[in-house]
């Protein structure tokens, strides 16, 4: 296997020689290659006279590829901004790679973007696991991880990772809003929860429990699912067997569909509350059939782009026009596409508002957002962060599905500055 006729002694000789080589190499000290030096780079790489390089890593293949749309959708918005001269005269150069949902590839892509492609910052990592995999790296390297689409409580801990900012509603907030709403309808509800088996799901449950504390309502069953599950039939069966009269679902669209379908098949009629990720009209409800999901509740901060009530909405019209021009392969009715579009708007605003185009200044701006209008937000909801207030979105509008539309129920519920941990 190794060449010809070498003996065991030859092997030991080789190892010794290697050790010598290593010592010799280290002795060479001052290297000409940057690979050796421990000093870090400049404070605002990725910014040239007329362009700023933003990097991203998206899941464009594999089981979570439904989240991959964030890359191309953001790109479409950036191109529309570039066509109008960019941000402060800087064109946005958006470079992104596929990570197939693999945390190691996310880190590889991030390092490539930062160390080779000279990215100013990493934008919009999607999902808790993906976003968590580069937390240490970006914070050690002092590279802004801007507007990560992740709601797990970890992302609200700004002190622990000062260079990371979330763009989403905290899952704990969602849980709290859902909990309060359930209490308002059924003070003694018995709640069964189907959630993802990760930080998002756990944060949601904590928020829910917090809202229910001291009331007559309880969580009687908690079920999780795996991406490799073909159906969630047995989870739903267990929820039903636990005597729940209310079901809360925090899941990806496909699994929320499967859950809703099963509930309908069983002829079971609990009160159903869907988390944001589980409630897309096109992705979650349509496969089950609108007629089979009448009356389910959810809590939104954004408009559902496939909902006919927004057909003439001027903000969404701008969104659709942008996609028609710069993102023709994208589906404007997809809720994630709109979310990405909103995220992109916030990034551009952040760059605009920032006092300077340096990493530190932009990071600071990202921690102090105040944006009353972003295309796609529901009326009454705005984006705000500040010291002690890490979550940009803390107001949700409870909605109910009637006919083929999500109809608002009551006024938006605000947890501004009060997102539980």
């Amino acid at each position, binding site marked *: 296997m190794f060449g010809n006729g070498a003996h065991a002694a030859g092997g030991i000789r080789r190892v010794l020689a290697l050790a010598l080589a290593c010592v010799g190499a280290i002795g060479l000290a001052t290297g000409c290659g940057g690979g050796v030096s421990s000093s870090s780079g400049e404070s605002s790489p990725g910014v040239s006279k007329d362009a700023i390089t933003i990097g991203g890593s998206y899941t464009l*293949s594999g089981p979570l590829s439904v989240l991959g749309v964030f890359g191309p959708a953001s790109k479409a918005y950036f191109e529309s901004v570039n066509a109008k001269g960019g941000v402060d005269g800087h064109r946005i150069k958006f470079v992104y790679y596929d990570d197939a949902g693999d945390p190691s590839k996310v880190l590889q892509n991030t390092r490539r973007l930062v160390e080779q492609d000279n990215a100013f910052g990493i934008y919009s990592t999607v999902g808790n696991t993906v976003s968590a995999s580069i937390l240490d790296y970006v914070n050690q390297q002092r590279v802004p991880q801007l507007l990560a689409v992740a709601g797990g409580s970890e992302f609200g801990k700004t002190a622990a990772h000062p260079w990371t900012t979330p763009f989403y509603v905290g899952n704990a907030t969602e849980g709290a809003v859902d909990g309060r709403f359930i209490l308002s309808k059924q003070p003694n509800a018995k709640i069964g929860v189907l959630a993802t088996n990760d930080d998002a799901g756990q944060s949601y449950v904590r928020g829910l429990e917090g809202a229910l504390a001291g009331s007559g309502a309880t969580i009687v069953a908690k079920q999780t699912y795996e991406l490799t599950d073909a*159906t969630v039939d047995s989870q739903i069966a267990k929820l039903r067997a636990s005597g729940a009269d209310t079901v809360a679902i925090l899941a990806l669209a496909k699994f929320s569909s499967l859950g809703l379908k099963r509930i309908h098949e069983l002829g079971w009629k609990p009160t159903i509350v869907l988390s944001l990720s589980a409630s897309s009209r096109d992705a979650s409800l349509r*496969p089950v059939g609108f007629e089979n999901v009448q009356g389910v509740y959810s809590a939104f901060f954004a408009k559902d782009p496939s909902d006919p009530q927004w057909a003439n909405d001027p903000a969404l019209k701008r969104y659709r026009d942008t996609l028609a021009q710069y993102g023709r392969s994208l589906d404007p009715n997809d809720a994630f596409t709109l979310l990405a579009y909103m995220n992109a708007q916030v990034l551009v605003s952040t760059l605009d508002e920032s006092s300077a185009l340096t990493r530190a200044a932009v990071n600071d701006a990202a921690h102090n957002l105040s944006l009353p209008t972003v295309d796609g937000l529901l009326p009454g909801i705005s984006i705000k962060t500040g010291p002690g207030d890490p979550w940009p979105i803390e107001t949700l509008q409870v909605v109910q599905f009637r006919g083929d539309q999500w109809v608002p129920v009551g006024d938006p519920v605000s947890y501004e500055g009060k997102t539980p941990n």
Partner: protein
Amino acid sequence: MTLFIQQVVDGIASGVIYAALALALVLIYRSMTLVNVAQGEMAMFSTYIAWQLTAWGLPIALAAPLVVGISLLGGMAVERVVIRPVQHRSVLDVLVVTLGLLLIFNSAAGAIWGTTAKRLPSLFPDDTVAIGGVTFGLETLGIVAVLLVVCGALAALFRFTSIGLAMRATTSNRESARLCGIPAHRMLMLGWGLAAALGGLAGVLIAPRVFLDPNMMLGVLVYAFAATALGGFDSPLGAVIGGVIVGVVENLAGVYVGFIGTDLKVLVPLILIVGVLLVRPRGLLGSPRVARV
């Protein structure tokens, strides 16, 4: 007791999903004594074609047989173009090629049709029938019926037709089969075509229940392998029975065995596989492995 029977019935409903894909795996194995890692993805791709046909207005009852036919031709084409150049080389080279196919089909489906889940109309009515307090889905019964018919057809093909005999000869000993005048490469092509056709059928049967998206078959594949291990890698009927058993055991274990829970549910078929492989490697209905020394 009714609850228990209901769980068993629910398990059968899942099990037939696994059985459907397992049939395709068995067919490939019978052609090449090899596992095609891409079988699930090819089936998923066929299912997308079915969806496209229904989106263009064709009723599912017509789209389904059409897709089975398209898959037959497609599978034969894949063998001819992609597999044949390497099939005389080692088993591992072919395995690597099938991995490449897996990646290609998975990406292509996402690129062409997007990644949002789609709904495929079912071949069977949505109703249920209640017998003695236990609910049976008509869809499940329909799938079981279809699978049994397919098993019968395959058994008849292999045992009573000359093509079937030629295929069996090619699998058993390719060189000798050639010496007898059997066009071995054509038999292999046919084997791939049949497996792809079965895969397409499986997809059309499965998709209404699990919704169609590029990753639909990922979870099912593991269970389908469990089904073939349990039933015997070369027995179609074994695959169906194996699939049903896997589904039932998985469901019962998830419900009645406390610490398993839904996150470890996938361990159930895995433990089943290990158990079968240790105790009776050939599976329930498989033929014992004969190797020449």
